[in-house]
């Protein structure tokens, strides 16, 4: 079943048209990878899924993006949207507070006050993000004392703590070493059963390893979208083949 339903989505930053008539469906229970050269619009589109672009001055969006059949740009409850659609960024960005408080931050913002409930939510989120064993004995320590890979999994835990339905990941492993990268990839594969995951990546092998579908963007257009195996073995579009085989330019 489709989680996100996009119809003729165009986006401008002032006069610059960054996305051009994107129409696509993103299915729940799958990992969808967005690939394409820098500046192709993939991160812009990702940010449109939880209205992160609203904060950008001069940004205008047309067309419709539906989440579970409801147009997210017609719903004034942006906090509610961001609770349902979490985001993880390229560089781990833990808050300068304890590990526990980082994870509890979201639920507290959404009104959870009970210590017992918070304890449960924090443990569950840290377990789901595969970082519980490494942090359970130091929950009161600063999140900044964790390694880069642990910080990124903590950020995933923070996103999961508000029990979202979808998770947006913008190059989540580009700043991590191979071991941390494989832990995140493993995690994504486990999480996809419960969350709709969209990941922007510049790592083609990563896209082939973890995604079910791949979308290739170029100059703001969705050029090719299909099953990852098809896109990486027999791409339909010459521009897509040139890009994934490293001959773009």
């Amino acid at each position, binding site marked *: 079943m489709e989680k996100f339903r996009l119809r003729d989505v165009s986006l401008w930053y002032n006069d610059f048209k960054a996305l051009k008539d994107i129409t696509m469906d993103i299915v729940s229970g799958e990992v969808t990878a967005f690939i394409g050269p820098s500046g192709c619009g993939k991160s812009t589109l990702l940010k449109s899924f939880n209205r992160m672009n609203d904060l950008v001055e001069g940004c205008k969006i047309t067309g419709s993006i539906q989440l579970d059949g409801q147009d997210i740009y017609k719903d004034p409850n942006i906090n509610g949207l961001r609770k349902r659609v979490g985001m993880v960024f390229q560089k781990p960005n833990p808050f300068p507070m304890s590990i526990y408080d980082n994870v509890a931050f979201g639920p507290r913002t959404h009104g959870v006050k009970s210590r017992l409930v918070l304890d449960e939510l924090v443990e569950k989120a840290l377990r789901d993000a595969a970082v519980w064993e490494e942090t359970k004995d130091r929950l009161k320590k600063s999140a900044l004392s964790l390694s880069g890979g642990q910080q990124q999994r903590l950020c995933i835990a923070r996103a999961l703590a508000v029990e979202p339905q979808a998770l947006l990941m913008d190059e989540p492993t580009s700043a991590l070493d191979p071991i941390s990268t494989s832990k995140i990839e493993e995690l994504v594969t486990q999480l996809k059963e419960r969350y709709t995951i969209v990941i922007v990546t510049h790592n083609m092998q990563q896209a082939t390893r973890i995604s079910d579908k791949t979308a290739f963007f170029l100059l703001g257009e969705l050029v090719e979208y299909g099953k990852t195996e098809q896109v990486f073995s027999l791409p339909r579009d010459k521009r897509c083949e040139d890009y994934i*085989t490293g*001959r773009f330019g």
Partner: protein
Amino acid sequence: MMRTRFDRQLETLNTMLIEMGAQTERAIALSIQALKEQNVKLARQAIACEREVDQTEKEIETLCLRLLLQQQPVAGDLRLISAALKMITDMERIGDQAADIAEISIHLSQEPYIKKLEHIPQMAQATVKMVTESIDAFVHRDLALAREVVDYDDVVDGLFDAVKNDLIALIGADSANGIQAIDLIMVAKYLERIGDHAVNIAQWVAFSITGTHDGGEEAD
């Protein structure tokens, strides 16, 4: 065009495959010429040629594994390199079978033939054509030519039946012909298998172009 180093390596792979194809063709041609002329020296050259084929196979295999490791190819590049890896296994088997024919020709070099060799050289010619064209199809990304090679196997199979029928008749006429007839049917069978290997090569060529392997059972 980026990835010029990778493209140069793929060009080297093409050149090496052409070379290996030429070596297998030479091995077949020499072994059959040795058989026809009952020439032991030519037979030994065919056997030496088979060793070159083995050596080239190892070099191509090393190059392909290096390309997989360093370039992590996808799409057309991945199909091309994986097809090359499969093709060289069949070419190596062709080399082995040409050497087997050369061994038989040494064994038969001292005795008169029970019949003038007619269909066997034709079979050899047909298989050399199949090998050449399958490699050409790979290098020029020529799907139609690859499919022609697959179809041409019927010619080789037809010639094999002709050889078999001739030899059955000769054994029927004089059972003493049976000893040599067994050697000759082995030669024909090796050539028939070479045709099957050429079909395998052509099917991998087609795969490298279309992404679909439409072959049935492969020769082992």
